[in-house]
Structures are given as structure tokens and as C-alpha cells.
């Protein structure tokens, strides 16, 4: 089954990519006061349902998918 992990930069860390995109959007005429860019990672693993999958996926996320110094993550069920 597929599970998603959303990785976002911590608010206290300067997100230069987000800032660059926001500047570009403003230059293009859109009113955007901030932009943060993260990652959406989809894993296909062996599990019966989302709650049984969570333990495994957390372990994978903590192994490499996010760096706790600069990012946070959330799990999301893919229906």
C-alpha cells in the first residue's frame, strides 16, 4: 500500500528556495506573502492498512527521509 510523507522546512530556518519562488510570484503580479517548499514522498510498502503502516513508515522517515535539525514531517494516508 502507498503512504505519503510530507517533509517541510522548519519555520525558523531560512527557506531560500521558498523565498526565491515568492519573489518571482510577486514579480509576476501575484500577491503571495510567503512561500515554503517541501517534499512529498510516496512509499509503497507491505502493510494491511494505514495505522499498521505508520510504525514502519516513521522508522523509514527517521532513517533518512527528513533531517530533524531543519525539517519536520507528517504522514498522510493515500486513499
Amino acid at each position, binding site marked *: 500500500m502507498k503512504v505519503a510523507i510530507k517533509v517541510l522546512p522548519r519555520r525558523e*530556518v531560512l527557506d531560500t528556495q521558498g523565498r526565491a519562488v515568492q519573489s518571482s510570484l510577486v514579480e509576476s503580479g501575484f500577491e503571495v506573502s510567503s512561500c515554503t517548499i517541501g*517534499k512529498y514522498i510516496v512509499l509503497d510498502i507491505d502493510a494491511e492498512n494505514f495505522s499498521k503502516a505508520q510504525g514502519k513508515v516513521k522508522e523509514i522517515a527517521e532513517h533518512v527521509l527528513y*533531517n530533524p535539525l531543519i525539517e519536520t514531517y507528517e504522514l498522510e494516508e493515500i486513499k
Partner: protein
Amino acid sequence: MKKLGIVRFLGTNCDRDISQVASEFKIPYEYLWYQDLFNVSDYLAIVLPGGFSYGDYLRTGALSARAKVMESVSEAAKKGVPVLGICNGFQILCEADLLPGVLLRNQNLKFIDQWENLEVSGSKTPWLEKYSKGEKLKLPIAHGDGRYYATDEIIKELQDNSQIALTYSNNPNGSSYDIAGVTNRSGNVLGLMPHPERALYGWMGHDFGRGFFEWL
């Protein structure tokens, strides 16, 4: 005779420059493949060279930090073997928790390729024993993700334990506290973004980098 171990990941591209350094100082060397463990006692020091390992995918240095060879690198670090991470190597050591902090995208989002004025900060590492505290040198940088970041708590620890090894005189990338290189608590592991191996001879521009390897 013990050798200099030069780690190679997929995408490492400064490995041969390090072997040139070893040849220059008549040090036997051996390449260490990312998928293999190695016998720590066979090596007098380990170098993680620069490059774009794993294409900087996911986060720069993140995938390399979880490669098999890092179990041996970690063992070497814990046993006090000198370990040097240059540029991508520094990024990998941080991701592997062998050094504190992390390297982020340069503040101006540009890949910066230029000589930098640096200052030696007075950490206790064999890699800098040929340099004195406060000494100024020039080394080239060539990176897109060189902005050193750590929380205030970590920075305070680095300051208290003399773990800040090198600082930029004109911070090119937004690194916290102008940090260009740090060591671990015991000082045997050094990571830095600049390339000492690219400052070995006068014809390269400057030869300030020799001291990093001469002591071996």
C-alpha cells in the same frame, strides 16, 4: 604501513585530487568503496572528498551518510582516527551525525566558485596543527550548498568546546557565525567547505592548503 583511505561514493569527483595530494607527500593511499566496510586499523586517516554524491538527491550528503562504508568511517571516528570531510564530505559527515549541524543551499541561491579569505579559529585538530590560531589563509570554494546551520544551543557548544575550526572573512553563503569548518568534540574529525587540495602549488593560485596534509 598504514594508508590514507579515500572514500568513494557514486558521484564523488574529487577523489583523484586527494590521491594526488597523497602522492605529493609520499603517503600510500587506498580508495574505499561506499558499499564496503573496511578495517579501521589499516588506515592512518580517512578522507571524504568533494563531489555530488548521489546527485545531492533528497538532501545533499543524506544518502551517502547511510551507505555501508559509513559504519567503518563512524568506527574510525570513534576510535580517534583522523577523518577529513571536504565540501560534499563535510555535508556527509554532518548528515551522518559525525559532525554537528547541516549544510544548506547558499543564501543567494548561486553556485559560488571563488577564492575565499579564511581564518583559523583555534580548534584542537591534527588537520590544522600546521596552522596557528588567528592565521589567515586563502582556499577556494565551489559549492551550491555551503551555508552552515546549527541551532543556537549547538553553536554555543561549538564555541565553548573550541569546535569551530575555520571562519570566512567575507561570508559568501550565509553560514551561521561565518563558519567554514567545524570539528567533533575530540577534534579528530574535521569538516570544511573549502578545498585545501586545490591550494597545493603556487600555479593553482595559492598553496595554503599544504598544511592540511603535510602533517600526515
